[in-house]
C-alpha cells in the first residue's frame, strides 16, 4: 500500500510539474504580449477565461476525442492541466507588469534601455511577486484537477481515490486524498514564500 501511495504521489508530481513548466513557459510570454498589444491581449484573456469556466471533468471529456493531444491517458491529463494553469499565470503576469509605477517605467526609458533591456532588467523583476502569486494559484489548481485526471486514465493520486470510491474503501480514498491535499499545501507554502521573498527583495511589498 505504501509503495502504491509513493508511486501515485510521484506520478502526480510529474504530471503537475510537466503541466506547470509548459504553462509557465507559455503563460509568461503570453502575459507580456497581452500588455504590449492591448487589443490582442483582451481577446487572449477572454479565451483563457472561457477555458477556465469549463468544469474539469467536462474538459477531460472534450479532450478525449481530440487527435494527438487527447485520448485516454496521461497526455490528456497534462494538456487539461496546462489549460487550467494558464489563466492565473497570464493574468498575474499582466497585473504585475501593469502595476509598475509609471515613473519607474519612464526612468528605465530615459536611461537609454532598449525595449528588451527594460523588460528583462526592470519590468519582469518588478512583476515577479505577482507572477509567483500566479504560479501559486496555478499549482494549487493543477494539483486538485490532476486527481480528477485519473478518470481519463491520467494516473496519479486520483487513481487511488477513484478505486477507493468504487470499492467503498475509505482507507484507499484517504490514501489518495491526504497526499493530494498535502501536495497542494506544500505548493501553496513554497510559492507563497517565493512571492513574499521577491516582494521584499524587490521593494514592492507595502
Amino acid at each position, binding site marked *: 500500500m505504501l509503495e502504491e501511495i509513493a508511486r501515485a504521489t510521484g506520478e502526480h508530481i510529474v504530471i503537475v510539474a510537466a503541466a506547470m513548466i509548459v504553462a509557465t513557459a507559455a503563460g509568461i510570454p503570453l502575459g507580456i504580449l497581452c500588455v504590449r498589444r492591448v487589443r490582442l491581449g483582451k481577446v487572449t484573456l477572454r479565451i483563457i477565461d472561457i477555458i477556465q469556466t469549463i468544469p474539469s471533468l467536462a474538459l477531460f471529456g472534450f479532450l478525449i476525442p481530440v487527435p494527438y493531444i487527447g485520448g485516454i491517458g496521461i497526455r490528456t491529463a497534462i494538456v487539461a492541466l496546462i489549460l487550467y494553469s494558464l489563466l492565473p499565470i497570464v493574468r498575474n503576469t499582466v497585473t504585475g507588469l501593469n502595476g509598475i509605477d509609471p515613473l519607474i517605467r*519612464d*526612468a528605465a*526609458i*530615459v*536611461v*537609454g*534601455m532598449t525595449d528588451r533591456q527594460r523588460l528583462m532588467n526592470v519590468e519582469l523583476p518588478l512583476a515577479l511577486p505577482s507572477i509567483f502569486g500566479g504560479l501559486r494559484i496555478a499549482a494549487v489548481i493543477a494539483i486538485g484537477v490532476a486527481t480528477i485526471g485519473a478518470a481519463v486514465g491520467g494516473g496519479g493520486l486520483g487513481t487511488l481515490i477513484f478505486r477507493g470510491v468504487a470499492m467503498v474503501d475509505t482507507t484507499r480514498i484517504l490514501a489518495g486524498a491526504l497526499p493530494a491535499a498535502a501536495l497542494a499545501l506544500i505548493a501553496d507554502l513554497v510559492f507563497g514564500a517565493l512571492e513574499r521573498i521577491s516582494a521584499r527583495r524587490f521593494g514592492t511589498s507595502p
Partner: protein
Amino acid sequence: MTVASSVSIDNVTVTTPRGDAIVRGVNLRIEAGESVALIGRSGAGKTTILRLLNGLTLPSTGRVVIDDTELRGDDLPRRRRNIGTILQAPALFPHRSVYDNVATVPRLLGWREERTRETADSMLARLGIPLDRFGARFPRSLSGGEQQRVSIARAMIAHPALLLCDEPFSALDPLVRHDLQEQFVTLRTGVTMLFVTHDLAEALRVARRIVLIDDGEVVCDTTREEFVRSTLPLVRQFIEASRLPEV
C-alpha cells in the same frame, strides 16, 4: 572634457489623442552649454516640452533636433544614454542597490567596472552620500533627499551632453532643497541644461536664461536679469508669489 549639446525645438505642436493641444507652435533654441529654466504654472506644458527632448513625448508636428540630428526612431535608446534626465520623483529602480542604480548608464555604455566604480565614488562623495556607506543599500531604506541625490548621480555619472530636470527638488523640504540646488549647480559645469520648475527662486538659482510657458506657448524668453525686470503681468505674478510676506 565636457561636451555640450545644442538643442532646437522647431515649431513643435503636441496634441493629445483627443485633440487638445498641450504644446502650441513652440520654438526654442538652446546653445551648447546654456542653462535654461522653463517655468510656468501646473499644466502649462513645461513637462511636455522637457519630454520632447528625451523622446518620451514625440511631436505631433514640427521637429526636435539635438546636435543637428532629429530626435526620433529606433536610435532613441542609444541617444538617451547621452542625455541625463532627472525626474520629478527619484524613480530609482527599487530592486537594485544604490550602486547598481548609479551604474545603470555606464553599464549600458559598456564602461569597464573599475571606471564605473571610480566615477560613482567621486560623484556620490560630492553629493554627500559616500559609496562605501550607501552603495550596497536599497532605495527604500533612503530618505527622500538621499534618493534624489542617487537619482542625480544616476543621471549625471556618464557626463551627458544634455541634462534635463523635471522639477527634481519640488518634493523636498526647503532646507534639503536649497542644499541640493547648490550641489547641483557645482556638479553641472558646462553641460547644456533644461530645468523645469514652478519655483522662480529655484529657476534663478540654477539657470541664466528663463523661459516662461503659459497654455502651451512661450510667453517670455530672456536672461534672468531681464526676466526679473519684465513688466509682463504673468511674470509680475510669479515674482510677487515668490516674495516673502511682510511680518
